[in-house]
């Protein structure tokens, strides 16, 4: 029945490939999707836009079979379907590239691509006869037909202009390359629909352009692509249509040709948004942090930071721009005393702090907003009060003899929660239950209330929604105005450009260039980030 209608329309772009109707998905304590309608047509790039926690990923996880909806209908190619596992989704032709890649780093590209697939039985192994059937069985269980797979992978890669080395180990690849492996993996399984969850978060501007070119080629060849994102310029550039979700509800589906960033932001947040946090020129003062020819090793024992030199001054934000994995994490850990300095010097207000114990570094006045808030920034199962007290626990103001002064602690925490606008029912609930934005506010409150002279902020807005990002950025600028030195590490180049006074570009562990923000532009920084000055 449905087949007929499909055939009549043939390659018509209006045919909905996927139709999701009135999808409801509840998790304990929240409704992630509340009667959401969604459809994507064959051959289109469809943007799924919304703040964090708007329910975008949940909706797509339902389509990919990771979650099952509480109510609502899904149909694919005109047939109602009940997708109960990713495997089932793949069989239907739905592939998904998650934010955290589902690859096995230790295996090769090719091995990752064929993982979990039964080998196809070649002609020479078909046919009757006892011996062949035994051989066939043996092949099914043990066989690994890498030759055929290799030809197909190369063929697919060429078709979409993807560069890929089938025999490289996945851990040796850059994040961008790993993403390509994920896409190939889905295509190899004959996906007709490809869902990409925040695919650009880890890419350089150049890589983003390449990705979008490729998606365009795919769409022209009849593939359908759903792009989950919260970046407005991306959806406008890359997508044909855009569906906006807010608080788990469908706001609207619009044609990207007919919308602007301002419209979309309003749909997404529900109010007007300030796009540019005011940044005024300031005069930098005394040198606070000085890093001199620093070399640090990564976990694999290879040089992650190689002879990096820079300094940060009072009343200045120095942004470190670079694609993740170029030594940023190791650099920050070394400054905070969490990773051994192999050679070179780190000085704080003229005093050397290389390889000093972290506690001593903290006490001298270094505040740290770590990249991994959930694991490094906080103890998620402890309460707000306890987390705020960390780092302050031995301060005389909170102690009476050997015991903590509970009233003093409670008073201070209540004041901070109010001052930093942490939205919570009580200060005695575990931090893990709060939203990302509120968690980040707690870390900010804890670090800033110690009045550090140097604040190191690593990915301070990653994964936050537009409102919280605005808050964090304003706060950083406010701190700078008060004369603090700020070292900002961000994968979001727009953010780095907007907040920093100077930008240090890191590539393969070297600070390749330090630029004044007002003398440079996105394009130039992007090029240096991609190693453009090196080769």
């Amino acid at each position: 029945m449905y087949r007929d209608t499909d055939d009549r329309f043939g390659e018509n772009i209006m045919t909905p490939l996927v139709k999701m109707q009135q999808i409801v998905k509840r998790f304990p304590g929240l409704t992630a999707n509340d009667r959401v309608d969604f459809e994507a047509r064959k051959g289109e790039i469809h943007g799924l836009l919304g703040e964090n926690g708007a329910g975008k990923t949940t909706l797509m996880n339902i389509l990919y079979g990771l979650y099952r909806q509480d109510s609502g209908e899904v149909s694919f190619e005109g047939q109602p379907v009940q997708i109960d596992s990713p495997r089932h989704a793949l069989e239907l032709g739905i592939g998904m590239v998650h934010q955290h890649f589902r690859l096995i780093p230790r295996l090769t590209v090719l091995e990752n691509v064929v993982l979990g697939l039964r080998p196809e039985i070649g002609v020479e192994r078909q046919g009757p006869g006892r011996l062949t059937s035994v051989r066939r069985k043996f092949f099914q269980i043990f066989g690994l037909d890498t030759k055929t797979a290799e030809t197909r992978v190369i063929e697919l890669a060429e078709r979409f202009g993807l560069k890929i080395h089938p025999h490289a180990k996945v851990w040796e690849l850059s994040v961008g390359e790993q993403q390509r492996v994920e896409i190939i993996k889905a295509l190899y399984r004959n996906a007709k629909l490809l869902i990409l969850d925040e695919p650009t978060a880890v890419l350089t501007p150049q890589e983003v352009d390449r990705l979008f070119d490729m998606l365009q080629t795919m769409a022209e060849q009849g593939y359908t692509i759903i792009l989950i994102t919260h970046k407005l310029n991306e959806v406008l550039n890359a997508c044909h249509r855009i569906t906006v979700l807010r608080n788990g509800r469908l706001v609207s589906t619009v044609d990207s040709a007919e919308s602007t960033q301002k419209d979309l932001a309003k749909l997404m947040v529900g109010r007007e948004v300030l796009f540019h946090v005011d940044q005024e020129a300031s005069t930098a003062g005394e040198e606070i942090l000085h890093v001199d020819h620093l070399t640090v090793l990564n976990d694999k024992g290879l040089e992650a930071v190689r002879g990096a030199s820079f300094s940060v001054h009072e009343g200045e934000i120095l942004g470190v721009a670079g694609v993740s994995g170029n030594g940023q994490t190791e650099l920050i850990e070394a400054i905070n005393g969490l990773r051994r300095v192999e050679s070179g010097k780190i000085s704080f207000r003229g005093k050397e702090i290389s390889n000093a114990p972290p506690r001593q570094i903290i006490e001298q006045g270094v505040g740290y907003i770590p990249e991994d808030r959930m694991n490094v920034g906080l103890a998620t199962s402890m309460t707000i009060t306890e987390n705020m007290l960390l780092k302050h626990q031995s301060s005389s103001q909170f102690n009476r003899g050997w015991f903590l002064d509970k009233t003093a602690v409670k008073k201070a925490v209540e004041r901070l929660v109010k001052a930093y606008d942490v939205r919570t029912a009580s200060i005695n609930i575990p931090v893990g239950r709060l939203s990302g934005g509120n968690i980040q506010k707690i870390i900010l409150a804890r670090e800033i209330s110690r009045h550090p002279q140097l604040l190191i902020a690593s990915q301070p807005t990653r994964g936050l929604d537009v409102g919280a990002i605005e808050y964090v950025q304003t706060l950083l600028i406010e701190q700078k105005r008060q004369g603090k030195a700020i070292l900002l590490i961000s994968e979001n180049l727009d953010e780095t450009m907007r907040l920093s006074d100077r930008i240090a570009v890191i590539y393969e562990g070297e600070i390749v260039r330090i630029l004044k923000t007002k003398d440079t532009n996105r394009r130039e920084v992007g090029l240096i980030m991609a190693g453009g000055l090196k080769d």
Partner: protein
Amino acid sequence: MFTSIFLISVLTGAVRAGTPLVFATLGEIVTQRSGVLNLGVEGMMIVGALSGFIGSYYSHSPWVGVVAAMLCAGLISLIHGFLCITLKSDQVISGIMIVLLGVGLTSFAGEAMVGITGYGFEPLHFPLLSDLPFLGEVLFQYNILVYLAVLLVPLLWWLLFRTRIGLEITAVGESPSTADTLGIPVDRVRYMCVFTGGMLAGLGGAFLSLAYTRIWVDHMTAGRGWIAIALVIFAAWKPQRALVGAYLFGGIEGLQLRLQTAGVGVSHHVLQMMPYAATILVLLISARESARRRIGAPEALMKPYIRGARD
């Protein structure tokens, strides 16, 4: 002439004492590569030693003993599997429990077997080869299990690194959630690997009571199971390195016995300590190596897989 005889006896001693370690280490490598740590090797070996001995004693065939040993130790390993894979409980605690269970169970059940000589494997005799001077003695005068252990190494290497099953085992041990989304049955693969590990540990134990000696002695594994676990780390989870490591340890044990019989003026307690002291040394070295190069250890080792939980 003394040196040649001494050398032959040390080398053959290394191989004989190393063979049970080869089996147990290979088994534990398979288990751990799927992401399950089974510290119960010692317990599974001792169960294998006793059930092998009983099996061969009543059937008069060492092969029946081997089958019995592999099955019984395999069954014991399934207890670990059930606790850790199905019930997701702590792998360390469960493993230690398997050791205590195995040692206790065999002390109790093996009481009647103490002091009996059983039916074991005879050394093979290859025409011409076995009669070669030196080489014949060092290479061609062992029982069949020794050669089986050697053959098992390339077989497992092929299985783990060149087949679909091996790929799936690696995937389950590295990232079970990824494996799951690709339709690989995580729990089934882990059960398979744990059972294989148990059977091989049992075979290692049977070697002790059917070939190395032909008697049953209470707690005759004497810590070899723990050495096997250390050897897994030394071997960096690779079968080929396990063979080298096992013979090296066999050599230390062989040497220690020769020194004792040669009447060196050192207390035999100190000499007996040698393999275990060497274990600590090896762990120190390989810990440094693995910290430096992040070699080996499966990413999901000791982590139970719960579908839908965050990675």
